[in-house]
């Protein structure tokens, strides 16, 4: 799931300053799951913006909408009928959603209300953690299903740095040392042998380097 967090209202307000009629659009997928951009959050943010405007004597008009997904044309298209009535769209989607909406409506002002953060796992209620960086070259098989690229602060491929103590990462004591996890999982699964291999440098070109990545599945295209 893609996680995100709402931007501080101050920042949102500054972006919205030139506009009066605002369409606040949520997204019902990932960002709803992490309680950042779903219908509920649209309601809360809109309420807050309205109250704030009232307090500062500014007249604004807000309409609240939430799409099932903001990264798919068929859902974005639902905005077509209403979008012209507004000065600006405040999108509570991830960066992908914001850009997708912008692309469909070339002449409309689109602003992001969220900071898109990472690909995450819902660890427990109200806690999301990053555990994949979408590097395009998954090596979890040799790392006992713990991703060092994401979960080691230094992205080390060949064992831990010298900073880990009592299984915590030196950078953030709240975070377990990824390499500690890898070593103990390999030990538990009887695959410590995997540690003796020196892993060659990764192929980062699968993650970045040629502009935005694409996946094309010819069989899925009509």
């Amino acid at each position, binding site marked *: 799931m893609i996680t995100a967090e709402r931007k501080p209202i101050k920042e949102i307000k500054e972006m919205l300053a030139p506009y009066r009629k605002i369409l606040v659009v949520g997204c019902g997928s990932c960002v709803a799951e992490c309680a950042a951009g779903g219908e509920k959050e649209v309601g809360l943010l809109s309420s807050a913006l309205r109250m704030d405007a009232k307090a500062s004597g500014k007249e604004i008009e807000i309409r609240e909408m939430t799409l099932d997904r903001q990264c798919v044309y068929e859902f974005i298209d639902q905005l077509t009928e209403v979008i012209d009535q507004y000065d600006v769209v405040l999108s509570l989607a991830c960066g992908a959603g914001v850009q997708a909406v912008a692309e469909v409506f070339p002449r409309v002002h689109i602003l992001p209300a969220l900071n898109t953060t990472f690909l995450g796992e819902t660890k427990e209620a109200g806690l999301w953690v990053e555990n994949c960086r979408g590097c395009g070259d998954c090596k979890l098989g040799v790392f006992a299903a713990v991703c060092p690229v994401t979960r080691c*602060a*230094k*992205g*080390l*491929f*060949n*064992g*831990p*740095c*010298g*900073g*880990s*103590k*009592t*299984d915590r990462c*030196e*950078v953030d004591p709240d975070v377990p*040392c990824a*390499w*500690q996890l890898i*070593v*103990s999982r390999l030990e538990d699964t009887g695959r*410590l042998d995997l*540690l*003796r291999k*020196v*892993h*060659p*440098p*990764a192929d*980062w070109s699968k993650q970045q380097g040629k502009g935005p990545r694409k996946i094309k599945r010819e069989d899925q295209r009509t």
Partner: protein
Amino acid sequence: MMTESRLKNVLTSGKFAVTAECGPPKGADPEVVKSKGKILRDHVDSINVTDNQTGVVRLSSLAACALLKAEGLDPVLQMVTRDRNRIALQSDVLGASALGIRNILCLSGDHQSFGNQPQAKGVFDIDSIQLIQAVRKMRDAGEIIGGDKLTGAPQLFIGAVANPFADPFKYRAARLATKVDAGAEFIQTQCIYNLNRFKEWMGLVRDLGMADKVYILGGITPLKSAKMAEYMAKNVAGMDIPEEVINRMKAAPATEQRQEGIRIAVETILALKEIKGVHGVHIMAIEWEEAVPQIVEESKLSPRPQA
């Protein structure tokens, strides 16, 4: 300027090596480096120059090494993978060799979040082991990563670091082996205060047969004060300072603490000399290079052999 690595010579000749560390200034004045070099000159075999240690911007390691080289010293170029991608790293390796630098110590580097540029983007394109492997391949096979041939191979004595005190402990010796497999020829360890733990680790290292394959230099940092001991124990990642050491520092009066620190360092070195498979010491007197001659002297490591 084709010279040899003095460190390599000392070690290969079976002598107990002494290296020290020199932190470059947070400025462009070459005299700082030169004066530190002067202090250490007759007391150590080689001088490590740190590479933006703890993520703080300092005069570059490569430049400082070049300055020391010009003074006739044998510098060890520390190179971290945090700040440069594989292109820059390999290019600097070639440059260092061209400048006559003959030792390189490959590290991943302290995380940028600890330094004065916490907003910096950490590069970590490759890790320290991959760097060791790359330098070794450049030197021995004349190839860079990916297989392209060099027109001339760099000449470098390749080192790596090890922290016997970090977790997972059991894996620490194996990790050393991985570094050796990758091509490391000498190892400088994290500062040793917990001798028991270090001995235990060395036992594991010997069991893996590594004591014969690599030169291990024990890390020594003289404590300046009880406060420093406490601070390091608490705040420096991967540091293991036993309670007795701290208490011993505390027991000494404030004016005597520096000397007590030196005494501990000396005792540690004397003990290290007795451990099988330890080939030398690496003294990291942090902003206290003046302490090095005394330590070397009292540890009966003077004079240093002529290389």
